C-alpha cells in the first residue's frame, strides 16, 4: 500500500485509540470509516487552502503588478485591501451565469468543471511534507502529468462550446500550446527521475537534501539547464504571460473565456491560479529540494512536519512571485515564435539534457558536482542512486 496521510496518522497512539473507541461504540470495525473520514477531512482542508491560495494569488498579482508599475493597487477592502479577493468571490457568486443562445450548453457547462477537476486532481500527489501528502503514489509524477492534461481539454472545449470566434481561436491556441509544451516539461522532469530512481514524489525528494548543494538543480550542469526548461515549459502550460496567447487581451477579446461569466468564469480563473501553484510546487519538489529542511530539523513529529510544510511553501511562493514578476515584465510572444521556441529550442535542449544526465550518472556514479569538487564534503549526500 502506498504511503498516504492516513498511514502517517496511523502511526500515532491517539489514532489507534480513536479507532478502538469508535469500534466499541458502533459495534463494527471502524477502520474503513476512519480512513474515509480522514481522507475526506484532508481533501477538504487541501481544497480550501488551495482555493485560498488561488484567491490570494489574484490579490498578490494585483499588488505586485501595482508595485512594479508604481501604483497603489487594491487598498480599500480590509487592511491593505487584503480581502479584496473575498469581495470578488462574492461578486462572482451573485452574478448571473449567462449561457449564450448559440452555445453548446452541455459542453459549455462541462468545460470549467473539467478544468477544475484536472487541477484539483493533481493536488493529490503534490508533496506538502513527508507526512501531509494526500497520497504518495508509486507513479506520482506520471499521474500528475496525466490528470493535469484534463485542463487543456477543458480550456479547448470551453473555447469550442462558446461558439464565438475569439473563444474558438483562444481554445485552439491553448490546445496546441499545452500539447506541445508537455514534451520538454516531461523530458526535463525525466532527468530528475533518472537521478532519484523513482516516480513517487517522496523518492524524488528524499534523494535531495535541505541545503542547496544537495538539490537536483545543482547536481550537474544538465539538470541546471533542465530546471529552466522545466520552468519555462510549465509557464507555457499554465497559459501565463509571456505565453498567455490563449487569452491575449489585445488580439482575442479575452480568449477562451470570453463568453463566460459568473461562477463559471471564476472556476477558470481559480484553476489557472491553482495550477500556477502546482507547477511551482512540482518544480520545487523536483529541482529545489522539496520539503527538506536544513540541519535535519524536519522529522516525523508534528513539529517537524510543520517545518517541512514551511520549507515547501516558502520555496513555492518564491517561485509564485517569480511567475507574477514575469507576467508584468515580459511582452507576449507571437504564435509562430511560441511554436519555434518549443519545437526548435526547448525540446532539443531537453533531450540533450536527458542524455547528458544519463552519461553523468554513468560516468561519475551518480555523484553530484559538489561532491566531485569537495571530496571531503560529508554534508553533500545528493543523488542517492
Amino acid at each position, binding site marked *: 500500500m502506498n504511503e498516504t496521510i492516513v498511514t502517517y496518522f496511523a502511526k500515532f497512539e491517539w489514532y489507534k485509540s480513536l479507532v478502538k473507541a469508535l469500534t466499541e461504540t458502533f459495534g463494527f470495525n471502524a477502520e474503513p470509516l476512519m480512513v474515509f473520514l480522514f481522507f475526506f477531512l484532508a481533501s477538504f482542508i487541501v481544497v480550501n487552502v488551495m482555493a485560498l491560495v488561488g484567491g490570494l494569488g489574484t490579490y498578490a498579482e494585483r499588488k505586485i503588478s501595482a508595485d512594479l508599475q508604481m501604483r497603489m493597487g487594491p487598498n480599500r477592502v480590509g487592511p491593505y485591501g487584503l480581502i479584496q479577493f473575498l469581495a470578488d468571490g462574492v461578486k462572482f457568486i451573485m452574478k448571473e451565469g449567462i449561457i449564450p443562445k448559440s452555445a453548446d450548453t*452541455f*459542453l459549455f457547462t462541462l468545460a470549467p468543471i473539467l478544468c477544475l477537476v484536472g487541477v484539483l486532481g493533481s493536488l493529490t500527489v503534490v508533496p506538502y511534507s513527508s507526512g501531509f501528502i494526500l497520497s504518495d503514489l508509486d507513479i506520482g509524477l*506520471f499521474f500528475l502529468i496525466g490528470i493535469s492534461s484534463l485542463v487543456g481539454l477543458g480550456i479547448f472545449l470551453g473555447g469550442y462550446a462558446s461558439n464565438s470566434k475569439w473563444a474558438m481561436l483562444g481554445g485552439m491556441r491553448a490546445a496546441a500550446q499545452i500539447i506541445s509544451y508537455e514534451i520538454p516539461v516531461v523530458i526535463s522532469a525525466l532527468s530528475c527521475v533518472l537521478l532519484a530512481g523513482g516516480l513517487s514524489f517522496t523518492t524524488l525528494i528524499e534523494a535531495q537534501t535541505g541545503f542547496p548543494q544537495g538539490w537536483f538543480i545543482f547536481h550537474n550542469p544538465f539538470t541546471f539547464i533542465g530546471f529552466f526548461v522545466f520552468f519555462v515549459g510549465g509557464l507555457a502550460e499554465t497559459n501565463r504571460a509571456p505565453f498567455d496567447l490563449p487569452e491575449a487581451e489585445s488580439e482575442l477579446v479575452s480568449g477562451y473565456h470570453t463568453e463566460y461569466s459568473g461562477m463559471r468564469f471564476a472556476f477558470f480563473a481559480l484553476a489557472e491560479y491553482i495550477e500556477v501553484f502546482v507547477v511551482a510546487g512540482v518544480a520545487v519538489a523536483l529541482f529545489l529540494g522539496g520539503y527538506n529542511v536544513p540541519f535535519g530539523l524536519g522529522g516525523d513529529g508534528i513539529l517537524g512536519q510543520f517545518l517541512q510544510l514551511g520549507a515547501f511553501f516558502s520555496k513555492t511562493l518564491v517561485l509564485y512571485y517569480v511567475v507574477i514578476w514575469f507576467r508584468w515584465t515580459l511582452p507576449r510572444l507571437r504564435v509562430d515564435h511560441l511554436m519555434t521556441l518549443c519545437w526548435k529550442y526547448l525540446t532539443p535542449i531537453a533531450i540533450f539534457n536527458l542524455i547528458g544526465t544519463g552519461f553523468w550518472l554513468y560516468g561519475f556514479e551518480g555523484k553530484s558536482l559538489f561532491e566531485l569538487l569537495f571530496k571531503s564534503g560529508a554534508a553533500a549526500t545528493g543523488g542517492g542512486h
Partner: protein
Amino acid sequence: MFGNILFLVSALFSVLGAVGVVVTKNIMHACVYLLMSLIGVAGLYLTLGADFVAATQLVVYVGGVVILMVFAVMLTGGADSQKSNRFGIEKTPMMGSVGTYVAGGISAILASYIVIYRLLPKIFEAEPVNSTMAFDKTVEKIGMLLVSDHVLAFEISSVLLLGALVGAAVIARPKRN
C-alpha cells in the same frame, strides 16, 4: 469497501460513456463521452492493481488522443456541418425481402436463446477469486520486463511512433504549388 465503490463507479462511467458514444448525434459530444468511458476504464485498471497502465491510459488518451479527435472535428467543419452526415442509418433504404427478415428474426431468437440459457449461466458461475495477489511496485517490474523480455516490441514501438509522427506530419500538410 473502497475497491467495490471504485469498481462500481468506474464500471458505470465506462459503460455509460460507451452507450453515450453510440446514442449521441453530436460528434463533439461523442468525443466527450469517449473521454468519460476511457476514464472509467482507467479506474477499472486501478481496481485490478495496474496503476501504471491506468496512468498511461490517462496520459495518452486524455492528454493526446481525445484532444486530437476534438481538433480533427473542428478542422473538418465542426459538429453540425451539413457536409458530414451524422447517422448514415437514416438515409439507408430498406434492404432485403420477407424471406431475409424471417431468416434474420429466427436467427436472432436462436442467438438470444444461446446467449441467455447457455452462455450466461457459465459466465456468472462462481469462480475462485485470487485477491491475495497484490502488485506492489508494478512500475519497477514493468520497467524490468520492458527492457528484458519485451525489448524487441519496445524498440519496434519506438520506431512505430517515429513513423507515425513523420507520416502524420507529411500527410496532413497541404501541398504547396
